[in-house]
């Protein structure tokens, strides 16, 4: 795999980690093109918001996969890091004069805090049994949620913070007077493309990381931590670094989320529901391959927005039957994703991507 790197531009871009399999490549190409031309393919405010969420969640889920899929550690604090980035930008824009310097400062503070806390949690796991790790991350994450709701002066408490973004990103801003291909070139479009380009760059950077020697050590830790340690790798250092990296990337995703929504609150970025979403994305898409979270994020965000109307129709058509209308009630969409999740963990541990790759062989 490494021989290809540096020769062809595509392999250089993907760090030699090709999707593998024609179906999978076509699917990913469709996602890439769909997101790249989303404003022109699916005009309107709502589809643009959905596309931006997909971009952000791709980064968030992929960064979680570095921990879960590559290093084999289940952390439940990923939303906390996501929230730190979002609150960093939100607080900076709400308290400081609005401008790009505030955005950068807030994002940098959020990323630094996330990395620092991740390192502290990693060092704590030096002292405790490894099996406590998941439970401790859950407790720390709920502590962060409490802090965010209680520190009302700083975070706006339960209501969250609404703030202005730099003028370039506001809906009122016009890049050009005339629409291009029927799409107005306004601040929303600029916001979307900012998020898209950043997400793509972060995704490619993560591909580079997991395919580097560092990434190989992480996979060695996943397969057999004892053996990796016996080979001379300081597994604690690698684990902690992986955690800090994953946390920093999640914070960047959070910063993008804040810029997109021009609002941040505990329910949007810190709640356990977001954590469940991330987990579903990574596992359904395929753990241990960064392409998995891409497909998982697309499936889950689309399901969130478009599965409910479909289920409403199904539920209505089943009206005569007992129980079934209740189970297919539009609010039960998470039930079916939960069932899908369990089935995938049992029967297709490698998720969509793993199954498609195996078929291609």
């Amino acid at each position, binding site marked *: 795999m490494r021989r290809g790197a540096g020769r062809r531009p595509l392999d250089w871009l993907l760090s030699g980690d090709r999707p593998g399999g024609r179906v999978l490549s076509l699917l990913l190409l469709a996602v890439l093109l769909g997101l790249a031309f989303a404003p022109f393919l699916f005009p309107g405010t709502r589809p643009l918001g959905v596309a931006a969420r997909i971009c952000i969640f791709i980064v968030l889920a992929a960064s979680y996969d570095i921990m879960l899929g590559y290093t084999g550690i289940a952390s439940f604090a990923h939303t906390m890091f996501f929230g730190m980035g979002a609150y960093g930008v939100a607080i900076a824009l709400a308290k400081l004069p609005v401008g790009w310097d505030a955005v950068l400062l807030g994002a940098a503070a959020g990323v630094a805090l996330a990395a620092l806390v991740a390192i502290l949690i990693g060092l704590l796991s030096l002292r405790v049994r490894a*099996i406590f790790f998941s439970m*401790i991350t*859950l407790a*720390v994450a*709920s502590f962060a949620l409490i802090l965010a709701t*209680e520190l009302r002066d700083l975070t706006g408490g339960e209501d969250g913070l609404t703030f202005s973004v730099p003028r370039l990103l506001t809906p009122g801003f016009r890049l050009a007077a005339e629409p291009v291909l029927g799409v107005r070139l306004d601040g929303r479009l600029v916001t979307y493309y900012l998020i898209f380009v950043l997400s793509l760059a972060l995704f490619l950077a993560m591909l580079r990381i997991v395919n580097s020697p560092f990434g190989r050590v992480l996979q060695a830790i996943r397969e057999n931590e004892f053996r990796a340690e016996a080979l001379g790798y300081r597994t604690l250092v690698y684990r902690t670094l992986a955690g800090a990296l994953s946390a920093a990337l999640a914070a960047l995703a959070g910063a993008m989320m804040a810029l997109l929504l021009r609002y941040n609150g505990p329910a949007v970025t810190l709640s356990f529901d977001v954590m469940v979403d991330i987990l579903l994305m990574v596992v359904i898409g395929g753990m241990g391959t960064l392409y998995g979270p891409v497909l998982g994020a697309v499936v889950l965000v689309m399901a969130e927005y478009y599965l409910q109307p479909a289920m409403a129709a199904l539920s209505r058509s089943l009206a005569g039957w007992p129980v079934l209308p209740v189970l297919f009630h539009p609010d039960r969409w*998470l039930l079916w994703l939960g069932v899908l*999740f369990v089935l995938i*963990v049992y029967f297709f541990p490698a998720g969509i991507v793993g199954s498609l790759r195996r078929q291609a062989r």
Partner: protein
Amino acid sequence: MSGALARLRAGDWSAYALLPAVMLASLPMMSLSAWLTLTVAGVAMGMMLFLMAAGLTLIFGLMQVFTFAHGAFITLGAYLAVSVLGALAGWSVAGSWWLNLAALGAALVAALIATGAAGYVFERVIIRRVYGEHLRQILITVGGLIIAEQLVVAVWGANPLPLAKPASFRGSIIIAGAAIEKYRLLAAALGLVVYAGLQLLLSRTRVGLLVRAGVENLEMVEALGYRIRRLFIGVFVTGAALAGIGGVMWALYQEVVTRSIGGDMTILIFIILIIGGLGSVGGCFTAAILVGLVTNYVGFLAPKLALGSTIVLMMAVLMWRPRGLFPVGAG
């Protein structure tokens, strides 16, 4: 393993002294009557937490099974309390002490049977396939938790349901100038009975001996020809049933049932398990009361910090004793 035994024999006084130390340290910060009220409230809360956590510590300890779905049994128990007490509304509002107790008993028995059965199904369908694989256990039980929560919402609806205590258990009695809620005394009594029962079971019966031996060293017990897996099903079912009872008691204490009741308690339960030491029923009991007391004291002194304080407590204990206050087994 032998280290833990030796320490117990040597009299591990500092871990035991923590509970009285916390009680005494909080005394100067408040009036005596407030302290008495809070202490009883804390002990009662701790007893309810113990009911919910006791099974889980054995499940972790015996088979090293990591389940994040324990909260689902608590939620199920809580909603069953709403249904049973709703159906027996006549008994519940009656002035008679015995009818009130019968209504509560019916709710407890219903929860015991239903969550025990649910625990059996959960063990056979979900847990059995992932013995020994920690990451998949965590994932699969989170999946199971999502499904269980959604099913509960499908049956009982998404809105919080009010739940009134049976008439005789409302109000409080005054002891030494301190108001003490009757229900808290009842919850504390039930917790004590269950604790005593569990300890008797574990220390005086053959099954209990095998469970304790399994927690200490699973492979050795299996090598001696005992089927630990079959025993584990029993432990899992018992743990689920206890969580169901805990759910009933907690729901009545809160007087409202929400679908997140189990998930909220799960965090506290994990804190208790970590503080107490995995696999130790006695440690779980001490840690539960410790968490209950700290929550109530801090909740009185600085209401905003209540849940946060238990997390700080957990961190402090981990710094002091990385394996919990009363560690068991080879780990």
